[in-house]
């Protein structure tokens, strides 16, 4: 019993040190990111991050948020036309306004770190370097990470 206890303590110590090594300064970034979220993102994605059905996608436990960081930053920088995001067969029709001229690299890194570590999400920090790389990448498909259910058009009669 004692052994199990020691193992558990060891496990949590190691796990938490692992996490903090991965994400230095994450707390400060999350705090700054929350302010950016409330000012810029909350109107559409809502206070609970669950978005609006048919219109603005949820940010909770989706691969779009928890997956490739550069692809995520690219969505914020260049925006979306609407319709690109599909989650569990639902699509979302409002455009995502580009924030290229609206938010700094630091603000984008902070807000994405906040989103990836709030609303029940848990993922690594997005760094300024990630955002800088996303700003200059010309890969347009960055907004469409590999998906087992690729975005499809509304079926329309021919």
């Amino acid at each position: 019993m004692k052994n199990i206890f020691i193992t558990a303590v060891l496990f949590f110590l190691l796990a938490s040190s692992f996490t903090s090594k991965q994400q230095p300064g994450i707390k400060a970034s999350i705090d700054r990111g929350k302010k950016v979220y409330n000012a810029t993102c909350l109107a559409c994605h809502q206070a609970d991050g669950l978005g609006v059905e048919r219109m603005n996608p949820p940010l909770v436990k989706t691969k779009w948020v928890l997956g490739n960081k550069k692809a995520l930053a690219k969505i914020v920088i260049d925006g979306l036309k609407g319709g690109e995001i599909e989650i569990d067969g639902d699509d979302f029709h409002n455009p995502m306004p580009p924030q290229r001229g609206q938010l700094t690299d630091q603000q984008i890194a902070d807000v994405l770190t906040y989103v990836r570590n709030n609303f029940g999400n848990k993922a690594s920090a997005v760094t300024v370097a990630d955002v800088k790389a996303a700003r200059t990448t010309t890969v347009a498909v960055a907004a469409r990470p590999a998906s087992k259910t690729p975005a499809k058009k509304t079926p329309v009669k021919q």
Partner: protein
Amino acid sequence: MIRLTCFFILFGIVLSAQQAIAGDTSILARPHAAAADAVITLPAGFSFTKMIGDLGRARHIVVAANGDVFVKLDKLKNGKGIYRLHDSNGDGKPDQVTGFGNYTGTGITIKNGYLYASSNTEVFRYKINEQTGEVDQASEQKIVTGLWDKRQHESKSLTLDNEGNIYVNIGAPSNDCQVQDRVKGSPGQDPCPILDSAGGIWQFKADQLNQSYATGTRYATGLRNVVGLDWNNESNDLYVMQHGRDMLFQFYPEMYDQKAGAENPAEEMFRIKKGADCGWPYCYYDNDKKGKLLNPEYGGDRNKTGRCDEKTKSIMQFPGHLAPNGLLFYTGSAFPAKYKNGAFIAFHGSWNRSPEPQAGYYVAFVPFKDGMPSGKWEIFANGFAGSNINRAAYKPCGLAQDKDGSLYVSDDNNGTIWKISYGGKK
């Protein structure tokens, strides 16, 4: 050593579980509130029955003369986009639920032996036997094609007059026709090029095939997005409900505080004559200033009216962002006299009120006399949101009336259809 091995196995399991979560969307928390706590309330003497649930995105609805309810879905259910609900034993629950049409969309209506339905780009019609509810699927005709679907405000709602014309809403794929849509500080385009192909109501012939912009008529313009519309047979005019613009507080906090941004602009009801220009994107109706003002993207300062003085005025205004998705003029005699020829409006509910609490999620009523509102609007059916107004259980969308005068309401959050009847004194 065993302890250490156990530890690493455990650690590995935790890590791979995290990886699995990061790559999988199937565990996404559904935003739908528990529907169980939503209790629908009605005025004294009225009662409702829930006909069916779980149809998904049930948008507009229509009832045939035999009582069959037809539902247009905005997401295919078992591959079908139109559902027919047939109740053969009269117990209020459909015992035959069948689907047809492989396209998603919003609009559906019945007129003179035809069922009309829309995708987000086209309008189809089918022969229907209204006495049996049978639809001849082989009779399908495409009467309108090639309409704009640029994702935003994509619904195509339908109504017909008594002279063989069909009216189709084409919503503007834009918030306020800025150079960069929904980007703070981006100026408004003047003139707004969207208005050539959207942001209005188009008129087509009900019986001609493959019509599009070139053969249709822009019947009214300056309407940002209409989802609820209806032809009023008493006044012989078209009436529409406009969804007002978003983001006044977010873009112009110096003019609109959080509360003003939630309450403005008004959602507006228009009585439409051919050629009407209702003002979008240049103008909006300010609920606090009680008038039509210039939008800030077009030089507005919350006082200037400018060109808005010349625009068609709305005949009734409602609180901001409530999203009127259904409009129905009640022609039945089953409800008390005050409802006759009045307007029911299904408010889908807001999203652009946050961080203020959301609002809407009810069916309102406006009394009418001689084609104009004759009193204040009131909430008729409420409680659809349930206990959390920010995560509504149901979102009212479509309205229909059967020949006996009962009112039907659809919800596109879960796909529920209710029938509302009156059993009190008249």
